[in-house]
Protein backbone atom coordinates (compact mmCIF):
# COMPACT_ATOMS: atom_id res chain seq x y z
CA UNK A 1 0.00 0.00 0.00
CA UNK A 2 1.16 3.51 -0.74
CA UNK A 3 0.75 5.97 2.08
CA UNK A 4 -1.20 8.71 0.25
CA UNK A 5 -1.50 10.78 3.41
CA UNK A 6 2.30 10.93 3.61
CA UNK A 7 2.44 11.65 -0.12
CA UNK A 8 0.10 14.64 0.22
CA UNK A 9 1.94 15.86 3.31
CA UNK A 10 5.28 15.68 1.51
CA UNK A 11 3.97 17.72 -1.43
CA UNK A 12 2.47 20.26 0.95
CA UNK A 13 5.70 20.56 2.93
CA UNK A 14 7.80 20.95 -0.23
CA UNK A 15 5.42 23.54 -1.72
CA UNK A 16 5.22 25.69 1.39
CA UNK A 17 8.97 25.41 1.92
CA UNK A 18 9.74 26.38 -1.69
CA UNK A 19 7.48 29.44 -1.51
CA UNK A 20 9.14 30.64 1.69
CA UNK A 21 12.60 29.85 0.31
CA UNK A 22 12.02 32.06 -2.74
CA UNK A 23 10.70 34.91 -0.63
CA UNK A 24 13.86 34.77 1.47
CA UNK A 25 16.42 33.78 -1.16
CA UNK A 26 15.68 36.44 -3.82
CA UNK A 27 16.28 39.51 -1.60
CA UNK A 28 19.10 37.74 0.23
CA UNK A 29 20.86 36.88 -3.04
CA UNK A 30 20.35 40.43 -4.32
CA UNK A 31 21.95 41.76 -1.15
CA UNK A 32 24.88 39.38 -1.55
CA UNK A 33 25.43 40.34 -5.21
CA UNK A 34 24.73 44.09 -5.07
CA UNK A 35 26.01 44.87 -1.58
CA UNK A 36 29.48 46.29 -1.06
CA UNK A 37 30.12 45.53 2.61
CA UNK A 38 32.92 43.11 3.42
CA UNK A 39 30.71 41.48 6.07
CA UNK A 40 28.52 40.08 3.30
CA UNK A 41 31.16 37.41 2.71
CA UNK A 42 30.45 36.20 6.23
CA UNK A 43 26.71 36.23 5.55
CA UNK A 44 27.25 34.26 2.34
CA UNK A 45 29.31 31.72 4.26
CA UNK A 46 26.57 31.45 6.90
CA UNK A 47 23.90 30.67 4.30
CA UNK A 48 26.03 27.78 3.02
CA UNK A 49 26.52 26.25 6.47
CA UNK A 50 23.57 23.82 6.39
CA UNK A 51 25.53 21.99 3.67
CA UNK A 52 28.27 21.18 6.17
CA UNK A 53 26.26 19.73 9.03
CA UNK A 54 24.94 16.19 8.80
CA UNK A 55 21.13 16.58 8.53
CA UNK A 56 20.44 14.57 11.69
CA UNK A 57 22.82 16.82 13.62
CA UNK A 58 21.13 19.92 12.20
CA UNK A 59 17.80 18.37 13.22
CA UNK A 60 19.14 17.71 16.70
CA UNK A 61 20.29 21.32 17.11
CA UNK A 62 16.88 22.54 15.96
CA UNK A 63 15.20 20.14 18.38
CA UNK A 64 17.19 21.63 21.23
CA UNK A 65 16.85 25.23 20.02
CA UNK A 66 13.09 24.97 19.50
CA UNK A 67 12.56 23.01 22.72
CA UNK A 68 11.01 24.52 25.81
CA UNK A 69 14.36 24.78 27.54
CA UNK A 70 15.42 27.78 25.43
CA UNK A 71 13.82 31.23 25.40
CA UNK A 72 13.48 30.96 21.61
CA UNK A 73 11.51 27.74 21.98
CA UNK A 74 9.35 29.10 24.79
CA UNK A 75 8.62 32.28 22.81
CA UNK A 76 7.51 30.31 19.76
CA UNK A 77 5.41 27.97 21.89
CA UNK A 78 3.72 30.97 23.52
CA UNK A 79 2.81 32.39 20.09
CA UNK A 80 1.68 29.11 18.49
CA UNK A 81 0.18 27.54 21.60
CA UNK A 82 2.32 24.42 21.15
CA UNK A 83 6.04 23.66 20.78
CA UNK A 84 7.37 23.84 17.24
CA UNK A 85 8.91 20.38 17.33
CA UNK A 86 6.64 17.49 16.28
CA UNK A 87 4.46 19.83 14.21
CA UNK A 88 4.12 20.66 10.50
CA UNK A 89 5.27 24.23 11.17
CA UNK A 90 8.38 22.85 12.84
CA UNK A 91 9.18 20.82 9.73
CA UNK A 92 8.72 23.93 7.57
CA UNK A 93 11.23 25.84 9.71
CA UNK A 94 13.67 22.93 9.57
CA UNK A 95 13.23 22.50 5.81
CA UNK A 96 13.74 26.18 5.02
CA UNK A 97 17.01 26.25 6.95
CA UNK A 98 18.13 22.92 5.52
CA UNK A 99 17.37 23.83 1.88
CA UNK A 100 18.39 27.50 1.99
CA UNK A 101 21.81 26.99 0.32
CA UNK A 102 20.14 25.10 -2.52
CA UNK A 103 17.96 28.12 -3.25
CA UNK A 104 20.52 30.86 -2.62
CA UNK A 105 23.46 29.44 -4.59
CA UNK A 106 21.75 29.29 -8.03
CA UNK A 107 20.13 32.71 -7.59
CA UNK A 108 23.43 34.32 -6.57
CA UNK A 109 25.04 32.75 -9.63
CA UNK A 110 22.19 34.00 -11.83
CA UNK A 111 22.28 37.55 -10.46
CA UNK A 112 26.08 37.66 -10.75
CA UNK A 113 25.82 36.74 -14.43
CA UNK A 114 23.77 39.87 -15.20
CA UNK A 115 26.09 42.35 -16.95
CA UNK A 116 27.20 45.10 -14.62
CA UNK A 117 26.73 47.70 -17.40
CA UNK A 118 22.98 46.93 -17.32
CA UNK A 119 22.89 47.38 -13.56
CA UNK A 120 24.84 50.65 -13.81
CA UNK A 121 22.48 51.88 -16.53
CA UNK A 122 19.42 51.07 -14.44
CA UNK A 123 20.94 52.87 -11.47
CA UNK A 124 21.72 55.95 -13.60
CA UNK A 125 18.12 55.96 -14.73
CA UNK A 126 17.11 56.20 -11.10
CA UNK A 127 16.10 52.66 -10.20
CA UNK A 128 16.32 51.99 -6.47
CA UNK A 129 17.32 48.57 -5.18
CA UNK A 130 13.77 47.09 -5.10
CA UNK A 131 13.10 48.18 -8.69
CA UNK A 132 16.57 47.03 -9.77
CA UNK A 133 15.93 43.56 -8.36
CA UNK A 134 12.34 43.20 -9.45
CA UNK A 135 12.51 44.70 -12.95
CA UNK A 136 16.04 43.79 -14.01
CA UNK A 137 17.70 40.98 -12.04
CA UNK A 138 14.67 38.74 -11.55
CA UNK A 139 13.54 38.69 -15.21
CA UNK A 140 17.10 38.18 -16.48
CA UNK A 141 17.89 35.45 -13.95
CA UNK A 142 14.54 33.68 -14.17
CA UNK A 143 16.07 30.35 -15.17
CA UNK A 144 18.32 30.48 -12.11
CA UNK A 145 15.30 31.23 -9.94
CA UNK A 146 13.47 28.32 -11.51
CA UNK A 147 16.48 26.11 -10.81
CA UNK A 148 16.51 27.32 -7.21
CA UNK A 149 12.82 26.49 -6.83
CA UNK A 150 13.29 23.02 -8.31
CA UNK A 151 16.31 22.25 -6.15
CA UNK A 152 14.63 23.56 -3.01
CA UNK A 153 11.47 21.56 -3.75
CA UNK A 154 13.24 18.28 -4.50
CA UNK A 155 15.66 18.67 -1.62
CA UNK A 156 12.69 19.06 0.70
CA UNK A 157 10.89 16.04 -0.81
CA UNK A 158 13.97 13.93 -0.16
CA UNK A 159 14.72 15.45 3.24
CA UNK A 160 15.16 12.83 5.89
CA UNK A 161 17.53 13.54 8.75
CA UNK A 162 15.95 16.79 9.90
CA UNK A 163 12.45 15.30 9.72
CA UNK A 164 13.57 12.20 11.60
CA UNK A 165 14.99 14.26 14.45
CA UNK A 166 12.38 17.00 14.59
CA UNK A 167 9.22 15.22 13.47
CA UNK A 168 8.31 12.43 15.84
CA UNK A 169 6.67 10.41 13.02
CA UNK A 170 3.10 11.67 13.51
CA UNK A 171 0.73 10.59 10.69
CA UNK A 172 -0.71 13.58 8.84
CA UNK A 173 1.55 16.07 10.61
CA UNK A 174 5.16 14.98 10.32
CA UNK A 175 5.24 11.55 8.65
CA UNK A 176 6.67 12.32 5.22
CA UNK A 177 7.33 9.90 2.37
CA UNK A 178 11.02 9.64 3.18
CA UNK A 179 10.14 8.59 6.75
CA UNK A 180 7.60 6.06 5.44
CA UNK A 181 10.24 4.68 3.09
CA UNK A 182 12.80 4.44 5.87
CA UNK A 183 10.32 2.68 8.16
CA UNK A 184 9.49 0.17 5.43
CA UNK A 185 13.16 -0.61 4.84
CA UNK A 186 13.87 -0.92 8.56
CA UNK A 187 10.88 -3.22 8.99
CA UNK A 188 12.13 -5.48 6.18
CA UNK A 189 9.04 -4.66 4.12
CA UNK A 190 11.06 -4.39 0.92
CA UNK A 191 8.10 -4.75 -1.46
CA UNK A 192 6.36 -1.72 0.04
CA UNK A 193 9.69 0.14 0.18
CA UNK A 194 10.17 -0.48 -3.55
CA UNK A 195 6.74 0.97 -4.30
CA UNK A 196 7.36 4.06 -2.18
CA UNK A 197 10.80 4.58 -3.70
CA UNK A 198 9.36 4.17 -7.21
CA UNK A 199 6.72 6.79 -6.40
CA UNK A 200 9.37 9.23 -5.12
CA UNK A 201 11.58 8.68 -8.14
CA UNK A 202 8.69 8.82 -10.62
CA UNK A 203 7.38 12.02 -9.11
CA UNK A 204 10.81 13.63 -9.28
CA UNK A 205 11.49 12.54 -12.87
CA UNK A 206 8.13 13.91 -14.04
CA UNK A 207 8.59 17.20 -12.20
CA UNK A 208 12.16 17.65 -13.44
CA UNK A 209 11.34 16.69 -17.02
CA UNK A 210 8.38 19.08 -17.10
CA UNK A 211 10.52 21.94 -15.87
CA UNK A 212 13.40 21.21 -18.22
CA UNK A 213 11.07 20.85 -21.20
CA UNK A 214 9.57 24.21 -20.29
CA UNK A 215 13.05 25.68 -19.95
CA UNK A 216 14.17 24.37 -23.35
CA UNK A 217 11.08 25.58 -25.08
CA UNK A 218 11.53 29.04 -23.63
CA UNK A 219 15.24 29.00 -24.33
CA UNK A 220 14.51 28.23 -28.00
CA UNK A 221 11.95 31.02 -28.19
CA UNK A 222 14.32 33.54 -26.63
CA UNK A 223 17.11 32.67 -29.08
Amino acid at each position, binding site marked *: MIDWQAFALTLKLATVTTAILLVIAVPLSALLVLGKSRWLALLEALTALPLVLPPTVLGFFLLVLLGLRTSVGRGIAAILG*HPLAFSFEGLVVGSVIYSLPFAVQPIVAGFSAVESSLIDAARLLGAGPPRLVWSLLVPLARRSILAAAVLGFLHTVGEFGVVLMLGGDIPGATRTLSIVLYNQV*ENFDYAAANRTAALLLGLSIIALAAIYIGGRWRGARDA
Partner: protein
Amino acid sequence: MLKQFLAIAFGLSCVPVVLAQASLRVAAAADLEPVLPRILAQFQQSSGIRAEVTYQASAALAAQIQNGAPFDLFLSADMRYPKRLIDAGLADAAGSADSTTPIIYAKGTLVLWARKDSRLAAPSVELLRDPGLRRLAIANPDRAPYGRAAVAAMTSLKLYDSLRPRFVTAENIAQAAQFVDSGNADAGLISLTSALTPHLEASGRYFIIPRDLYPPIEQGAVIVSRTAQRAAVHKLLDFLLSPAVQAQLSRAGLTSVQEK
Protein backbone atom coordinates in the same frame (compact mmCIF):
# COMPACT_ATOMS: atom_id res chain seq x y z
CA MET B 1 63.41 5.17 -2.98
CA LEU B 2 60.64 3.25 -4.68
CA LYS B 3 61.76 0.08 -2.95
CA GLN B 4 61.65 1.75 0.45
CA PHE B 5 58.23 3.11 -0.32
CA LEU B 6 56.95 -0.30 -1.36
CA ALA B 7 58.42 -1.86 1.76
CA ILE B 8 56.64 0.66 3.97
CA ALA B 9 53.40 0.28 2.04
CA PHE B 10 53.62 -3.50 2.38
CA GLY B 11 54.34 -3.22 6.09
CA LEU B 12 51.36 -0.93 6.63
CA SER B 13 49.05 -3.14 4.62
CA CYS B 14 49.90 -6.07 6.93
CA VAL B 15 48.93 -4.24 10.12
CA PRO B 16 45.14 -4.34 9.73
CA VAL B 17 45.28 -8.01 8.74
CA VAL B 18 47.12 -8.91 11.93
CA LEU B 19 44.66 -6.88 14.02
CA ALA B 20 41.66 -8.40 12.28
CA GLN B 21 42.84 -11.91 13.15
CA ALA B 22 43.26 -11.05 16.80
CA SER B 23 39.93 -9.30 17.38
CA LEU B 24 36.31 -10.30 17.38
CA ARG B 25 33.72 -8.20 15.61
CA VAL B 26 30.61 -7.77 17.68
CA ALA B 27 27.34 -6.29 16.47
CA ALA B 28 25.57 -4.97 19.56
CA ALA B 29 22.19 -3.38 20.19
CA ALA B 30 22.37 0.32 21.00
CA ASP B 31 21.07 -0.18 24.56
CA LEU B 32 24.32 -1.99 25.40
CA GLU B 33 26.49 1.01 24.65
CA PRO B 34 26.59 2.24 28.26
CA VAL B 35 27.48 -1.25 29.55
CA LEU B 36 29.49 -3.25 27.08
CA PRO B 37 32.78 -1.32 26.72
CA ARG B 38 33.76 -1.97 30.33
CA ILE B 39 32.80 -5.63 30.12
CA LEU B 40 34.78 -6.12 26.92
CA ALA B 41 37.82 -4.43 28.46
CA GLN B 42 37.66 -6.97 31.29
CA PHE B 43 37.25 -9.76 28.77
CA GLN B 44 40.36 -8.63 26.93
CA GLN B 45 42.31 -8.57 30.19
CA SER B 46 41.28 -12.05 31.19
CA SER B 47 41.37 -13.76 27.77
CA GLY B 48 43.68 -11.62 25.64
CA ILE B 49 40.98 -11.47 22.97
CA ARG B 50 40.11 -8.04 21.68
CA ALA B 51 36.55 -7.29 20.56
CA GLU B 52 35.51 -4.41 18.35
CA VAL B 53 31.89 -3.36 18.66
CA THR B 54 29.44 -1.69 16.31
CA TYR B 55 26.45 -0.25 18.16
CA GLN B 56 23.24 0.20 16.19
CA ALA B 57 19.56 -0.61 16.25
CA SER B 58 19.08 -4.39 16.33
CA ALA B 59 17.01 -4.24 13.15
CA ALA B 60 19.75 -2.42 11.25
CA LEU B 61 22.40 -4.86 12.47
CA ALA B 62 20.25 -7.84 11.46
CA ALA B 63 19.81 -6.37 7.97
CA GLN B 64 23.56 -5.81 7.71
CA ILE B 65 24.34 -9.38 8.76
CA GLN B 66 21.77 -10.66 6.27
CA ASN B 67 23.69 -8.79 3.61
CA GLY B 68 27.07 -10.16 4.54
CA ALA B 69 28.43 -7.77 7.18
CA PRO B 70 31.56 -9.36 8.67
CA PHE B 71 30.47 -9.81 12.30
CA ASP B 72 31.24 -12.79 14.51
CA LEU B 73 28.64 -12.29 17.23
CA PHE B 74 25.30 -10.50 17.30
CA LEU B 75 23.98 -9.21 20.63
CA SER B 76 20.43 -8.13 19.91
CA ALA B 77 18.07 -6.17 22.12
CA ASP B 78 15.33 -8.70 21.46
CA MET B 79 14.74 -12.27 20.28
CA ARG B 80 13.02 -11.52 16.99
CA TYR B 81 15.98 -10.40 14.90
CA PRO B 82 18.43 -13.11 16.03
CA LYS B 83 15.68 -15.68 15.47
CA ARG B 84 15.21 -14.33 11.97
CA LEU B 85 18.91 -14.82 11.25
CA ILE B 86 18.77 -18.39 12.58
CA ASP B 87 15.76 -19.13 10.37
CA ALA B 88 17.65 -17.75 7.39
CA GLY B 89 20.53 -20.11 8.14
CA LEU B 90 22.94 -17.25 8.76
CA ALA B 91 23.37 -17.60 12.51
CA ASP B 92 23.15 -20.25 15.21
CA ALA B 93 23.36 -20.86 18.92
CA ALA B 94 25.58 -23.95 18.64
CA GLY B 95 26.85 -25.18 21.98
CA SER B 96 23.75 -24.14 23.94
CA ALA B 97 20.86 -26.41 24.88
CA ASP B 98 18.85 -25.58 21.79
CA SER B 99 20.90 -24.41 18.83
CA THR B 100 17.88 -22.91 17.06
CA THR B 101 16.90 -20.52 19.89
CA PRO B 102 18.98 -17.39 20.52
CA ILE B 103 20.89 -17.43 23.80
CA ILE B 104 19.26 -15.05 26.28
CA TYR B 105 22.08 -13.02 27.83
CA ALA B 106 20.08 -10.29 29.60
CA LYS B 107 16.63 -8.85 30.06
CA GLY B 108 15.66 -5.23 29.58
CA THR B 109 13.76 -2.98 31.97
CA LEU B 110 11.27 -0.37 30.79
CA VAL B 111 11.06 2.94 32.64
CA LEU B 112 9.04 6.11 32.38
CA TRP B 113 11.49 9.01 32.31
CA ALA B 114 10.93 12.76 32.69
CA ARG B 115 13.10 15.76 33.39
CA LYS B 116 13.48 16.88 36.99
CA ASP B 117 12.26 20.37 36.04
CA SER B 118 9.10 19.03 34.37
CA ARG B 119 5.94 21.01 35.07
CA LEU B 120 4.17 17.68 35.73
CA ALA B 121 4.37 15.29 38.67
CA ALA B 122 7.29 12.88 39.02
CA PRO B 123 7.07 9.80 36.78
CA SER B 124 4.60 7.14 37.90
CA VAL B 125 1.69 5.25 36.43
CA GLU B 126 -0.43 8.23 37.48
CA LEU B 127 1.62 10.49 35.20
CA LEU B 128 0.45 8.38 32.24
CA ARG B 129 -3.14 9.12 33.27
CA ASP B 130 -2.48 12.86 33.61
CA PRO B 131 -4.32 14.87 30.89
CA GLY B 132 -1.54 17.47 31.21
CA LEU B 133 0.83 14.94 29.60
CA ARG B 134 0.74 16.28 26.06
CA ARG B 135 3.64 14.49 24.39
CA LEU B 136 4.85 11.03 25.30
CA ALA B 137 7.98 9.82 23.51
CA ILE B 138 8.28 6.14 22.68
CA ALA B 139 10.66 4.16 20.49
CA ASN B 140 9.20 2.88 17.22
CA PRO B 141 7.11 -0.15 18.28
CA ASP B 142 7.41 -1.77 14.85
CA ARG B 143 11.04 -2.60 15.46
CA ALA B 144 12.40 -1.29 18.76
CA PRO B 145 11.93 -3.85 21.57
CA TYR B 146 11.38 -1.12 24.14
CA GLY B 147 8.81 0.46 21.85
CA ARG B 148 6.92 -2.85 21.73
CA ALA B 149 7.16 -3.17 25.51
CA ALA B 150 5.89 0.40 25.89
CA VAL B 151 2.83 -0.35 23.77
CA ALA B 152 2.22 -3.60 25.69
CA ALA B 153 2.47 -1.83 29.05
CA MET B 154 0.06 0.92 28.00
CA THR B 155 -2.32 -1.69 26.63
CA SER B 156 -2.19 -3.56 29.97
CA LEU B 157 -3.03 -0.30 31.74
CA LYS B 158 -5.88 0.27 29.25
CA LEU B 159 -4.29 3.62 28.40
CA TYR B 160 -3.13 2.85 24.87
CA ASP B 161 -6.09 4.40 23.02
CA SER B 162 -6.13 7.57 25.09
CA LEU B 163 -2.35 8.06 24.89
CA ARG B 164 -1.92 7.15 21.25
CA PRO B 165 -2.72 10.62 19.82
CA ARG B 166 -0.05 12.01 22.13
CA PHE B 167 2.76 9.71 21.01
CA VAL B 168 5.86 11.04 19.40
CA THR B 169 7.68 8.13 17.88
CA ALA B 170 11.45 8.10 17.95
CA GLU B 171 13.81 5.96 15.96
CA ASN B 172 15.15 4.28 19.10
CA ILE B 173 15.23 4.77 22.87
CA ALA B 174 18.19 7.12 22.70
CA GLN B 175 16.23 9.46 20.45
CA ALA B 176 13.10 9.08 22.60
CA ALA B 177 15.23 10.21 25.55
CA GLN B 178 16.50 13.19 23.49
CA PHE B 179 12.93 14.23 22.74
CA VAL B 180 12.23 14.43 26.47
CA ASP B 181 15.63 15.75 27.57
CA SER B 182 15.40 18.66 25.11
CA GLY B 183 12.08 19.65 26.66
CA ASN B 184 10.01 18.83 23.58
CA ALA B 185 8.13 15.88 25.07
CA ASP B 186 6.82 15.69 28.63
CA ALA B 187 7.92 12.13 29.32
CA GLY B 188 9.24 9.08 27.55
CA LEU B 189 9.20 5.31 27.86
CA ILE B 190 12.85 4.30 27.59
CA SER B 191 15.27 1.67 28.87
CA LEU B 192 16.67 1.65 32.37
CA THR B 193 20.16 1.42 30.81
CA SER B 194 19.56 4.82 29.18
CA ALA B 195 18.04 6.34 32.32
CA LEU B 196 21.15 5.30 34.27
CA THR B 197 23.64 6.96 31.91
CA PRO B 198 25.31 9.89 33.71
CA HIS B 199 23.69 12.61 31.59
CA LEU B 200 20.11 11.37 31.91
CA GLU B 201 20.56 10.37 35.53
CA ALA B 202 21.58 13.97 36.29
CA SER B 203 18.80 15.65 34.34
CA GLY B 204 15.82 13.42 35.05
CA ARG B 205 13.89 10.97 37.17
CA TYR B 206 12.56 7.56 36.27
CA PHE B 207 9.88 5.14 37.36
CA ILE B 208 10.30 1.41 36.73
CA ILE B 209 7.24 0.16 34.89
CA PRO B 210 5.94 -2.90 36.79
CA ARG B 211 7.28 -5.98 35.04
CA ASP B 212 3.94 -7.76 34.95
CA LEU B 213 2.62 -5.11 32.55
CA TYR B 214 4.69 -6.18 29.54
CA PRO B 215 6.26 -9.39 28.22
CA PRO B 216 9.92 -9.69 29.27
CA ILE B 217 12.33 -7.86 26.98
CA GLU B 218 14.61 -10.82 26.41
CA GLN B 219 17.87 -9.94 24.71
CA GLY B 220 19.21 -12.74 22.51
CA ALA B 221 22.70 -13.49 21.24
CA VAL B 222 23.56 -15.54 18.17
CA ILE B 223 26.81 -16.62 16.56
CA VAL B 224 27.12 -15.51 12.98
CA SER B 225 27.62 -18.87 11.28
CA ARG B 226 30.31 -17.70 8.86
CA THR B 227 32.66 -16.73 11.68
CA ALA B 228 36.20 -18.06 11.54
CA GLN B 229 36.64 -17.57 15.30
CA ARG B 230 34.03 -19.80 16.84
CA ALA B 231 36.16 -20.72 19.86
CA ALA B 232 36.75 -17.07 20.74
CA VAL B 233 33.05 -16.26 20.30
CA HIS B 234 32.14 -19.03 22.76
CA LYS B 235 34.66 -17.68 25.26
CA LEU B 236 33.00 -14.25 25.05
CA LEU B 237 29.51 -15.74 25.41
CA ASP B 238 30.56 -17.75 28.49
CA PHE B 239 32.09 -14.59 29.93
CA LEU B 240 28.86 -12.62 29.34
CA LEU B 241 26.84 -15.32 31.12
CA SER B 242 29.22 -15.60 34.06
CA PRO B 243 27.78 -14.49 37.44
CA ALA B 244 30.25 -11.60 37.82
CA VAL B 245 29.34 -10.06 34.47
CA GLN B 246 25.64 -10.71 34.96
CA ALA B 247 25.84 -8.76 38.23
CA GLN B 248 27.42 -5.86 36.37
CA LEU B 249 24.58 -5.94 33.86
CA SER B 250 22.09 -5.59 36.71
CA ARG B 251 23.88 -2.53 38.04
CA ALA B 252 23.75 -0.94 34.59
CA GLY B 253 20.01 -1.38 34.26
CA LEU B 254 19.61 -4.79 32.68
CA THR B 255 18.17 -7.77 34.52
CA SER B 256 20.44 -10.78 34.75
CA VAL B 257 19.29 -13.99 33.14
CA GLN B 258 19.14 -15.82 36.47
CA GLU B 259 16.64 -13.40 38.03
CA LYS B 260 13.05 -14.19 37.40
